[in-house]
């Protein structure tokens, strides 16, 4: 793709300004349609029977009594859909309904479709399943040490292998051990990141409609309609050309709806058998079992630096507790190491990460997939190293800044990089220099940084086709129709393509219609994951709109006998750049173009550059066309008697390339920081141990017991947008939806240390965990304010607030 330089801000009329979301009115009036709002004539309701055992053989299933109930139209079990599915083609390991074995409490065993939901629930009681219980693996290290004396969670891929291991990755860049041995300072730490879950407020929901002669339509609250389309065809053995996937608006996802789930296959199969449409809506409890949330990570980090504070060598050993199925785990295992090589440079790096199966709900991708956990450990390690070499943690980070237009130690290509501006923004806004190590005991500030991908460079199944496509039509009325297959999950991608169409074609925003989320009429977009949508869909939209704009410009130029590039389209009119008094309504311009070129429509697409990573095995995972950068400062107050941590404020600076709509970017930054804050202080996806009875049972599958922050808990955020103008992003834009989550957690951990001198290397920083750590520190006399770097507190006069060079 030949790239033109981005337009200057002064040439943009809409992009970069605060704009409303195009579906805002529907959302404020309750008219916006989500999947469960759809009711079809004759629709049945489905329910799924789930395993009460963490690990068991299914000896027999008898569904005859359930089938005999009047009002029950279909009952299915594993044998009805005997093909495994999985989001990653190489690790498909789940049946829509278990066939011979259940692997966690909540695993799907059978499904029914009945005239109403209550009858479907009752019918499940008439399905009789005989189980033979098996020993369950609940601890990842026990899982790793298994010798086959009891059945593995999955059969080993190779004879004699450990079937509990999903994936093991060990990559080394440079001479890690030699460089470590030559380092002046080495810090080693053990870290534990407890798992957490997405808890989108909309539960998963799907509707299947079989037309009786071969066409299947599935409505689903999914983030990945294209991958769902493919998996439905493969698993149900249907012609993909006769499957239609419709994605209504999605009520939050955060990674929790980014792969197919049992319910989508079940509604399809039940509809095929019952010859009626079938809907399944998960209960809140089922959402917790479906999970695919943040993996618990056990991490050991050894990191070295020179006396001057130059990072030298990094060695990471990571065990990922994957739960019962692979999900995205292959990618997670790589991301756990691959995404840590910026924004700091290091001369040698090794990570050894192993994902194991356990008999718990499957873990997968949650906002900031794979790198939120190691980033916590890494940024706390940086804080510890900075202290050892007597440097302010900002200064330590600056000294190790990797720069722009460079390669990381693992050979990922970095283009734009606004990390230094991010650091400067939060340092200034938080008045860091007046606070760090100087606030009274119990109060503290902490800083952390991070990077994240703007889309993954390769699709989940290998192919060379575009990652995102957009089709646009221009109507004689002046209206522009945009056909977009991208997944609107609240982030604003439908609005984003509308902004681009309005910007490029010069029409008012209300003249743009976005027709969306339907595989029958929208080009393929791979889905809302890996922070890919703005970058890829945005570029595709610019591509389509530019083709149309050039036709309109040529037609108007022909009419006025001027050059095409002198025709400006903006605000609903076409005008001559040299004499803006010369105008015509945009509708007339469109009509001229249609008269000259025929019916006006264009497709646009985006594909990734292929030379942005190393050629070692696994080098493609973690590769992205661009990277975002973030820095946070958190200010906390710790009550050492109760262990309660109050986060007073988080300053969030994020390099999103260019903020296409700053209102939406701020929303993503705040939402990310909120989610990180919740994980840091209160969220725990945990399960009962054998000692507690009912081993493997989710401890709290409800939104009261799995606590997420309310309006009262959430701290104040200050969003500081940094614009590095990426050379390849749409108008220079990069991602904003996931990167800003990462530093929340280590910034809070580092702030707790600044407040009371206690290192929190284990999540969450809940009152019980905090209190235990405080008591331990008290016993060894370690409770207290840490020393200022170099031992001399700087007076405010000696360290004037820095002036800002960029950001807003």
């Amino acid at each position, binding site marked *: 793709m030949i790239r033109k330089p981005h337009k200057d801000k002064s040439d943009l009329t809409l992009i970069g300004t*605060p704009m409303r979301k195009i579906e*805002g009115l529907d*959302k*404020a*009036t*309750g*008219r916006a349609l*989500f999947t*469960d*709002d759809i*009711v079809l004539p004759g629709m049945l309701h489905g329910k799924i029977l*789930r*395993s*009460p055992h963490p690990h068991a053989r299914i000896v027999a299933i008898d569904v005859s009594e359930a089938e005999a109930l*009047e*009002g029950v139209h279909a009952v299915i079990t594993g044998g009805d859909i005997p093909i495994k599915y999985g989001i990653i083609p190489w690790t498909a390991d789940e049946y829509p309904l278990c066939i011979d074995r259940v692997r966690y*409490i909540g695993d799907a065993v059978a499904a029914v479709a009945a*005239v*109403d939901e*209550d*009858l479907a*629930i*009752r019918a*499940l009681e008439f399905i009789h399943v005989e189980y033979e219980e098996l020993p369950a693996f609940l601890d990842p290290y026990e899982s790793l040490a298994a010798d086959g004396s009891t059945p593995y969670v999955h059969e080993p891929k190779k004879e004699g292998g450990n079937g509990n291991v999903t994936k093991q990755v060990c990559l080394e860049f440079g001479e890690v051990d030699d460089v470590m041995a030559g380092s002046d300072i080495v810090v080693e730490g053990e870290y534990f990141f407890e798992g957490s879950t*997405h*808890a*989108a407020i*909309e*539960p998963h929901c799907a509707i299947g409609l079989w037309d009786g002669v071969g066409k299947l339509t599935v409505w689903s609250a999914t983030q990945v309609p294209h991958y769902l389309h493919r998996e439905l065809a493969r698993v149900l053995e249907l012609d993909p050309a006769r499957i239609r996937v419709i994605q209504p*608006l999605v*009520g*939050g*996802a955060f990674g929790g709806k980014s792969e197919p789930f049992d319910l989508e296959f079940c509604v399809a199969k039940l509809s095929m058998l019952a010859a009626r449409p079938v809907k399944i809506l998960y*209960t*809140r*409890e*089922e959402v917790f*079992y479906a999970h695919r949330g943040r993996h618990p990570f056990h991490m050991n980090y050894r990191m070295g630096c020179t006396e001057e504070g130059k990072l030298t060598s990094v060695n990471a050993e990571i065990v990922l507790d994957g739960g019962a199925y692979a999900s995205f785990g292959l990618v997670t295992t790589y991301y756990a190491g691959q995404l840590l090589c910026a924004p700091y440079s290091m001369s040698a790096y090794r990570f050894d990460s192993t994902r194991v199966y356990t008999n718990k709900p499957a873990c997968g991708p949650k906002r900031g997939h794979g790198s939120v956990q190691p980033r916590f450990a890494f940024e706390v390690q940086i804080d510890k190293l900075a202290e050892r070499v007597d440097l302010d943690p900002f200064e330590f980070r600056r000294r190790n800044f990797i720069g722009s237009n460079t390669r990381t130690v693992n050979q990922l290509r970095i283009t734009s990089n606004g990390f230094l501006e991010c650091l400067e923004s939060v340092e200034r806004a938080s008045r860091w220099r007046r606070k760090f190590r100087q606030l009274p005991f119990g109060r503290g500030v902490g800083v952390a940084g991070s990077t994240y991908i703007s889309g993954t460079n390769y699709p989940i199944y290998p192919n060379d086709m575009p990652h995102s496509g957009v089709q646009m039509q221009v109507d004689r009325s002046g209206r522009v129709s945009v056909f977009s297959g991208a997944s609107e*999950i*609240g982030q604003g991608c439908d609005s984003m393509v509308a902004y681009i169409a309005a910007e490029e074609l010069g029409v008012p925003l209300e003249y743009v219609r976005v027709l969306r989320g339907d595989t029958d009429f929208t080009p393929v977009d791979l889905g809302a994951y890996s922070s890919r949508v703005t970058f890829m869909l945005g570029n595709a939209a610019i591509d389509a709109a530019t083709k149309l704009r050039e036709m309109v410009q040529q037609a108007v130029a022909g009419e006025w006998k001027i050059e095409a590039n002198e025709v400006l389209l903006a605000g609903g009119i076409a005008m001559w750049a040299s004499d803006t008094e010369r105008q015509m309504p945009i509708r007339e311009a469109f009509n001229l173009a249609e008269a000259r070129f025929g019916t006006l429509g264009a497709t646009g697409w985006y594909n990734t550059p292929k030379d942005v990573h190393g050629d070692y095995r696994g080098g493609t995972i973690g590769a992205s066309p661009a990277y975002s950068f973030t820095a946070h400062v958190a200010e906390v107050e710790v009550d050492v008697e109760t262990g309660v941590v109050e986060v007073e404020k988080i300053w969030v600076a994020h390099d999103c390339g260019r903020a296409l709509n700053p209102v939406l970017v701020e*929303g993503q930054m*705040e*939402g990310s920081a*909120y989610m990180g804050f*919740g994980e840091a202080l209160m969220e725990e996806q945990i399960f*009962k141990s054998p000692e507690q009875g*009912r081993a493997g*049972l989710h*401890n*709290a*599958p*409800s939104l*009261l*017991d799995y606590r*997420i*922050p*309310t*309006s*009262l808990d*959430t701290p104040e955020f200050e969003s500081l947008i940094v614009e590095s103008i990426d050379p390849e992003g749409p108008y220079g834009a990069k991602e904003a939806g996931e990167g800003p989550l990462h530093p929340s957690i280590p910034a809070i951990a580092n702030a707790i240390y600044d407040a009371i001198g206690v290192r929190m290397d284990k999540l969450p920083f809940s009152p019980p965990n905090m209190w235990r750590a405080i008591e331990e520190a008290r016993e060894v006399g370690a409770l207290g304010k840490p020393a200022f770097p170099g031992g001399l507190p700087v007076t405010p006069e000696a360290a004037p607030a820095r002036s800002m060079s960029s950001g807003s």
Partner: protein
Amino acid sequence: MGEAESIGLLETKYSRRNFIKGVIAVGATASSAGYFIGGSGLLGAQSVPGAAERLITLNVNGQQRRVDVLPNETLAMTLRYRLNLTGTKLGCDRAECGACTVLIDGVNRYGCSTLTHQVRGSSVTTIEGLENPDTGELSLVQQAVIDEGGFQCAFCAPGFIMSMTAMVNENPNPTRAEAAHALSGNLCRCGDYHKILNCAMRAAELARSV
């Protein structure tokens, strides 16, 4: 939460809706039998004792609506699946998330935890009832939400908007902390609380200027 409650297949016995069924024991027994024998709860209505009482009149959004309601039916279910007022959302169906919040006689209540039969004689307002019925004009709260660009996925928005409406009616001069308290029974997982509070404060400002 007790152990037994958190097992998927025991949902049948211990879910909130079934708990409510248990509370209204006679109705529950009768209606379950109705499902079993008659198939659909609706189709089996004639065979159920007390069926005549199921056809009730509700005052929803200023209109009298005749509707057939099971004795154990929650208001959220009636609104969504019988009256097709799908603006009221279900996020948990057990009084945790607030997505189903509606106004009952002006007070914000969880629709999933209110039996429809309890609101006979009350006035129920849903998100669909906020606009001016004659002009279609948005309510002040809805206008504030549009102005401030609040909410992302907005699945929680109807519930929040109803709570904001109750708040503004009760206290049109709240502090930000009071607004946060008034909205603390509603969960937003996009983490848009900052903008949601801006909406609430803007709505109060608009209410004061009327």
